[in-house]
């Protein structure tokens, strides 16, 4: 069976770090380098922060995180069942944010720090972000 893990937690700010560290640990076990892991941590932090800030306005709701090991790296999925994104293309533009205290760089960092990136969202049903990060160096033989 291919290695994977799933984590579900409430949309609380402290869980951004929890998700980030969980994925970093998983990535370290897959042989990613420290600089690669730092990039993965930023990408995960942005995806999970978006759920905390935007997905469930004024309400509690779950963050669902899943990581799958791939032959060439890692696949990360962050999913919520929140309000969704009305205009995904607009949300992915740099400097777009519905919150004046945020820079609108979340999607920019997610895209920049992953090799494959996709967003699926439906208003009223939620959002799913998928990122694939490939290892530059081959993993050591077990």
């Amino acid at each position, binding site marked *: 069976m291919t290695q994977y893990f799933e984590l579900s937690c409430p949309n609380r700010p402290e869980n951004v770090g929890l998700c980030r560290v969980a994925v970093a640990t998983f990535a370290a076990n897959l042989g990613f380098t420290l600089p690669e892991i730092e990039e993965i941590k930023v990408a995960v932090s942005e995806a999970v922060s978006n759920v905390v800030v935007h997905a469930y306005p004024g309400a509690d709701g779950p963050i669902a995180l899943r990581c799958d090991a791939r032959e060439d790296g890692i696949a990360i999925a962050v999913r919520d069942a929140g309000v969704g994104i009305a205009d995904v293309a607009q949300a992915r533009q740099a400097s777009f944010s519905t919150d004046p*205290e945020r820079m609108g760089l979340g999607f920019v960092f997610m895209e920049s720090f992953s090799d494959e990136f996709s967003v699926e969202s439906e208003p009223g049903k939620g959002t799913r972000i998928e990122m694939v990060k490939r290892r530059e160096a081959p993993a050591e033989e077990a």
Partner: protein
Amino acid sequence: MLEGAGKNVQIAIKRQGRQATARLAGEFDLKAAPQVREQLDGLIDAGMQRIIIDLRGVRFLDSSGLGVLLGRYRRLSERGGSIYLLTASEGSVRTVLEMSGVRQVMPLLASESEVPRG
């Protein structure tokens, strides 16, 4: 003054006249953002005109932390003040700062000695 022990981020603040240095350590993310925002807004409200934010002890920074920095820049620049950021020359914090373009409005410096004299 050491604030935030046991939290994601620790903040030590030193004031000298109308200049203040805020030394941050830890992880500057969504969890830490309100605490840092409150501390820096307190300095702005107290009339500080030059704020040096020392990020060299920060081991993680994302767009939530960047938003706090940019928001404080906007507030202080409206009052004619300036913010300077101290960062390591490499690493993920530096990468995130460079990618964000904040250096166009807040200089990225290696040490306090590089801050222009006011």
